[in-house]
């Protein structure tokens, strides 16, 4: 079910979800890796993902959200926003296991070398492209005669959100 679309991407409620509250954001351009898109477009998609996560959190009263992008798995990459409940059995959590420091350092230096060729100026140019303005939180809607609607939250969500942190 398509719920939003613009020049850059399209937002779908997943029709074949892994849990209730599974939203996908596809870039309009069919790419296998999200990093093939300009930085500003990636930022725009995450801005939408941020809003979607917020709506899932408030509207579904879920305990947490994941935002996951698996690059290279499908021919058309997508950002997935997944509503999580405590002990929902989905897993997607791993045990941190210490690795050999030298090995970590070695790979780190290789990655670092692979990133260096990027000209920081060029990066900033990309950032400077206009990114559509923030769309959440929207103005609280005034309705008389109404009870609290979880889909239209008005209170400061941060206290609730902070309780769900480790």
């Amino acid at each position, binding site marked *: 079910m398509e*719920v939003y679309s613009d020049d850059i991407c399209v937002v779908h409620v997943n029709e074949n979800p892994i849990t209730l509250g599974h939203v996908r954001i596809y870039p309009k351009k069919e790419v296998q890796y999200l990093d093939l898109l300009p930085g500003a477009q*990636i930022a725009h998609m995450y801005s939408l993902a941020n809003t979607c996560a917020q709506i899932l959190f408030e509207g579904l009263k879920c305990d947490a959200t*994941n935002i996951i992008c698996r690059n290279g798995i499908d021919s058309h990459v997508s950002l997935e926003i997944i509503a999580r409940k405590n002990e929902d059995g989905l897993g997607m959590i791993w045990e941190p296991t210490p690795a050999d420091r030298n090995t970590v350092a070695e790979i780190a230096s290789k*990655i670092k070398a692979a*990133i260096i060729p990027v000209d*920081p100026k060029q990066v900033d140019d990309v*950032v400077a492209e206009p*990114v559509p303005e923030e769309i959440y939180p929207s103005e609280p809607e005034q309705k008389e005669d109404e009870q609290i609607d979880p889909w239209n939250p008005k209170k400061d969500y941060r206290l609730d959100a902070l309780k769900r942190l480790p």
Partner: protein
Amino acid sequence: MSQQQTPEQIIAEQKENCPFCKIASGQIPAEKIYEDEVLIAIADINPIGAGHLLVFPKEHYPLMQMMPPEIRDHFFSKIGYLSKGQRDGAVLLNNVWFIAGGAAAGQRTPHFMLHLLPENQTTSELFTQKHIELVQEQVNQLGGALQQHLGGTQQQGQQPTQQSPISEEQRAQLAKRLQEDKELFALITQDPTKAAEKIHEDHELSKLFAGVDITALSGRLSQAGGGQ
């Protein structure tokens, strides 16, 4: 005295003991991969596989939702470069960008971060999930809420991307009718399904409302009505 802490107080307390704030300020050493004025990328010392990176803002934000939009945009506009570098440097075919917002999603520290994970057997198993049966009504409700929040705001933008299937003349007639007919207005805002039935039964009304999505109209009217 109130026992309830404000979000600001909670965040200030978290910051004092936050290892990632200390990495950002240089008090704790780390394998830095990239750093600029907003963000820092390091190699995870407890990796899920070779090449696991952590990318986080230097400032302490417990959740992504708490990042100011300009910081967030800067942050995500750089992830692509780091991601490509990770694949090239660690010789990976695929990788995963992973964010956990809340403990139930796997967040372990109250400092927002993005994991750049290598795609390997472990992560592949981790993220391969069974699909569930669709509960259409709930999906519709969720879809409606998202539409309202995402699509509704887009209309306020500069570009009138919304294509209207109805003519200007019809729109004017409709607006006039809705202004005069308070009863109809109320019915549409309060019970769009019933309103749609009524309109369908009435010849004059169905002509006036031809091509109009009553549910969408209802949403817009109640939004506009509340704002005035």
